[in-house]
């Protein structure tokens, strides 16, 4: 025991000799089990204020360099333990002892998952409170874009869904507090109905870790989670306000919470309103958005063994779709492509939202009970229900614009039981059973034949994962099986209209292994290999009709088979010196029977003219990519960061590129931080640049028009933190597209019609009390 403290002492000595400047502290500490006193290796340690982290070594010791203040919030997490979060202050000759409590009262699963990711990985694959606070005006998908390997598929400024390593939509489930977000994931113009401010942690997970969740992924998942209520016995909270110049948007957020073991509660509400956005040179008429969300979290500890919690949330939004993007047929599209400024562009600003528009309401109720048999064995039971109500309005005759063209309702019920205990020789087993029921219905109020039919879907799945630390290795192996039944009731194309029924049964599997090897306390190598299969979704089978948003006729194929994928990846995360950190990863995925929308040679003649026909087809595909990220501390106050992403998707069967794959990009940023400057406690200034290449890996016949040219955007951000008595005041100003560049992005469908967003100045204020 003493020898370990001696080691820490040595570390400190070493540190103080190399880093002698003031305000350039080295933080050291040891992480132990509170009960046994045993050191915990590979626990992740994070200083949230600086997004700095480390992993404890074999002896449970961690070292974090370049810390500018000796008081900070320290978060320590490890599998099977409660997350330790505390405001600590240390002086130079002192180190921290963190005692983790075995996860006996911890309710939320996020603590367990967090322990499975090392601190370095978490830096790049996770977005926390602080960043969400500065990106408060953005949607979930846009926030995720700052992670390496993540981009977003957009339909204008208000609609965006995340793309992770080339996969999105049906292949990328989004888990809202552990429950697969239900909704109309199939549409590229349907963004996930989640308020990122309510959910204060967003992360991308992959490999074996992702196997414990139900959702039809081919590897990656997006986790959106509300942190457990802070162990703070007084009423505390947060209030925030922002204004954005582009669209003259305003937003307010208020969160209040109080912790008490008998009943802890947290309530969070958000209101947002924005009008027409502006491209570099003109207004984007009808691109306003309105949002009102509320969420309630409850936690109750019954006794040492039982705890309960509940989450209720309601998300409500109305989104305008660029008026000029509403087209009739192929001729209209060709005409739109010819224009510099879209049709129906007003030369004035307005908050009005008219057709085409979407209104979506999403409600979630989640109840969870956790039972601890002993310190290492627990059972977790969840019931969740969701209601998703989506209406899309088109421009119609005789005031029928008030009648939706698409009106879908989706109910889901989800039941889950998870169980974890140590097995064999110190392996940890995690296993579970999940059942999910979806009821998807079209409301006939539309007066239009539905694009996707009504259906029931029943899913039952089971998984088991094993994990263990062996010396410098951390191993995880796991498998998952899902059975799905689809009961579909479609309406025929032929007249008289009649009901056609389909019953489908599927079995899908996942198997994977992840290994993490720590070559030293500063370098880790992560290797991952997995296979997965995915059923065709109802839209891929039975889509039928005109997809107004896409201006094409979409046809499903009832004879599709499931797609199977194998994916391998290697990541190396290393702190080469105290000044340089590098995170890099390469991945390769082969997908057999990849389902995609193939434009057909046929042009369908209708009374409204000719339409292109898209049919769901299958081919073997491959996606390979690499992401690299580096941080270099030029001096104690200045940090340089760089990031590069490469991705290439190919349809191997037809020897052509895959469509809708993200362009390669690189970004750099320079951050200056300073403590105690004038009246500001902590100031940080960021200048950033992001260059997106043209998507050149595409054949001319694969799209209506050439992919947009490469572009480069500059950004600027200034943040200031002040502590006024018990209140923490955070203010920021951020400028996106600083030079007001006019550009179009390949993954934004609006590119056919209009330029992307011009300069946006966002100012915000946050009070924590």
């Amino acid at each position, binding site marked *: 025991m003493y020898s370990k403290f001696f080691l820490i002492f040595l570390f400190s000595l070493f540190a103080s000799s190399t880093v002698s400047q003031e305000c350039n502290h080295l933080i050291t500490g040891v992480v132990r089990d509170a009960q046994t006193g045993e050191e915990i290796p590979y626990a992740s340690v994070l200083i949230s204020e600086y997004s700095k982290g480390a992993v404890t070594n074999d002896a449970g010791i961690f070292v974090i360099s370049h810390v500018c203040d000796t008081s900070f919030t320290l978060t320590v997490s490890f599998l099977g333990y409660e997350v330790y979060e505390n405001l600590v202050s240390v002086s130079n000759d002192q180190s921290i002892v963190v005692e983790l409590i075995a996860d006996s009262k911890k309710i939320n699963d996020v603590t367990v998952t967090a322990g499975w990711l090392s601190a370095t990985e978490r830096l790049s694959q996770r977005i926390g409170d602080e960043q969400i606070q500065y990106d408060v005006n953005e949607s979930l998908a846009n926030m995720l874009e700052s992670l390496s390997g993540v981009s977003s598929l957009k339909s204008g400024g208000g609609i965006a869904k995340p793309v992770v390593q080339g996969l999105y939509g049906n292949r990328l489930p989004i888990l809202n507090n552990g429950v697969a977000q239900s909704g109309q994931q199939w549409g590229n113009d349907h963004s996930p109905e989640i308020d990122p401010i309510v959910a204060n942690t967003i992360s991308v997970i992959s490999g074996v870790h992702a196997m414990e969740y139900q959702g039809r992924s081919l590897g990656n998942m997006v986790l959106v989670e509300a942190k457990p209520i802070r162990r703070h016995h007084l009423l505390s909270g947060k209030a925030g306000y922002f204004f954005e110049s582009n669209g003259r948007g305003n937003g307010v957020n208020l969160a209040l919470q109080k912790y008490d073991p008998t009943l802890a509660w947290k309530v969070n509400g958000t209101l947002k309103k924005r009008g027409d956005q502006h491209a570099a040179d003109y207004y984007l008429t009808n691109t306003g958005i309105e949002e009102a969300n509320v969420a309630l979290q409850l936690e109750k500890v019954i006794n040492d063994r039982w705890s309960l919690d509940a989450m209720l949330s309601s998300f409500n939004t109305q989104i305008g779709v660029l008026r000029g993007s509403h087209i009739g047929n192929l001729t209209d599209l060709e005409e739109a492509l010819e224009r510099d400024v879209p049709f129906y562009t007003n030369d004035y600003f307005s908050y009005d939202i008219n057709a085409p528009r979407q209104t979506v309401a999403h409600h979630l109720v989640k109840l969870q009970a956790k039972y601890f048999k002993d310190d290492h064995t627990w059972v977790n039971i969840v019931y969740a229900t969701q209601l998703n109500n989506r209406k899309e309005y088109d421009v119609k005759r005789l005031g029928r614009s008030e009648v939706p063209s698409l009106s879908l309702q989706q109910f889901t019920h989800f039941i889950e039981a998870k169980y974890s205990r140590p097995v064999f020789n110190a392996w940890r087993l995690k296993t579970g059973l999940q059942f999910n029921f979806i*009821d998807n219905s079209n409301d006939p109020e539309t007066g239009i034949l539905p694009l996707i039919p009504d259906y029931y879907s029943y899913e039952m799945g089971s998984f088991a994962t094993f994990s263990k630390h062996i010396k410098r290795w951390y191993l995880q192996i796991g498998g998952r099986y899902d059975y799905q039944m689809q009961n579909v009731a479609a309406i025929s194309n032929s007249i008289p209209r009649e009901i056609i029924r389909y019953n489908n049964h599927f079995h899908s599997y996942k198997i994977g292994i992840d290994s993490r090897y720590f070559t030293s306390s500063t370098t880790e190598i992560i290797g991952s290999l997995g296979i997965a299969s995915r059923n065709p979704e109802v839209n891929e089978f039975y889509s039928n009709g005109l997809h107004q948003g896409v201006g094409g006729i979409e046809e499903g194929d009832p004879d599709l088979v499931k797609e199977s994928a194998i994916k391998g990846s290697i990541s190396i995360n290393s702190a080469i010196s105290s000044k340089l950190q590098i995170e890099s990863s390469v991945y390769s995925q082969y997908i057999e029977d990849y389902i995609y929308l193939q434009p057909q040679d046929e042009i369908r003649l209708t009374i409204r*003219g000719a339409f292109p026909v898209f049919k769901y087809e299958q081919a073997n595909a491959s996606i390979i990519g690499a992401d690299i990220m580096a941080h270099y501390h030029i001096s104690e106050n200045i940090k340089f960061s760089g990031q590069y992403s490469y991705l290439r998707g190919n349809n191997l069967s037809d020897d052509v590129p895959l469509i809708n794959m993200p362009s390669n990009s690189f970004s750099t940023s320079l951050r200056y931080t300073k403590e105690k400057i004038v009246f500001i406690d902590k100031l940080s200034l960021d200048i950033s640049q992001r260059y997106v290449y043209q998507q050149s890996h595409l054949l001319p016949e694969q799209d209506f028009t050439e992919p947009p040219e490469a572009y480069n955007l500059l950004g600027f951000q200034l943040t200031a933190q002040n502590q006024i008595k018990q209140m923490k005041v955070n203010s920021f100003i951020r400028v996106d597209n600083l030079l007001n560049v006019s550009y179009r992005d390949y993954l934004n469908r609006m590119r056919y019609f209009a330029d992307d967003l011009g300069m946006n100045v966002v100012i915000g204020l946050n009070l924590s009390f």
Partner: protein
Amino acid sequence: MKSTSIYLAGLVIAFIALTSCEKDDPIIPHEEELITSLIYTLSPVGVGETVVLSFKDLDGDNGNSPIISKGLLKANTRYTGAMELLNELEEPVHNITDEILEEAEDHQFFFTSTVNDLQVLYSDSDMNGNPLGIKTQLATQGEGTGVLKIILRHEPDKFADGVADGDITNAGGETDIEVIFEIDVQ
């Protein structure tokens, strides 16, 4: 172990019981937005045979191909044109021409032909004095063959350059109808 088996068996039974439910029959919507038929009746001024150009797609966008008639017109003749739009899927047949008339300012038909000297002129107008195209005059001159294209635009800019004269170039809006008839002028 025994309790686990019972538990699992119970789950399987519950699952089978639940999955035996069938989704209810969906209500087939009244397809009131649909236009199935366009009928352009050309009555010669004076003597001659009435010509009916019709485009009918009775089952909507998908399913069977539309039935399109051909037009046999007389050379050097003036016709009075009347446009009729129907939704023949509804019972009784829904007349969409009335809806267009009611929203005349938001609609306009455009006529273009590849037949030499075939001309279509508007003989109606909306509240603002701009043409609509439900009522037209069609005049032929010499013999020839080609096509007549009829386009209906919803929310065009009817005040834009040339639009009132039947030039679609600056009209914008979205296409509600676009049909092409083969024409033979003899």
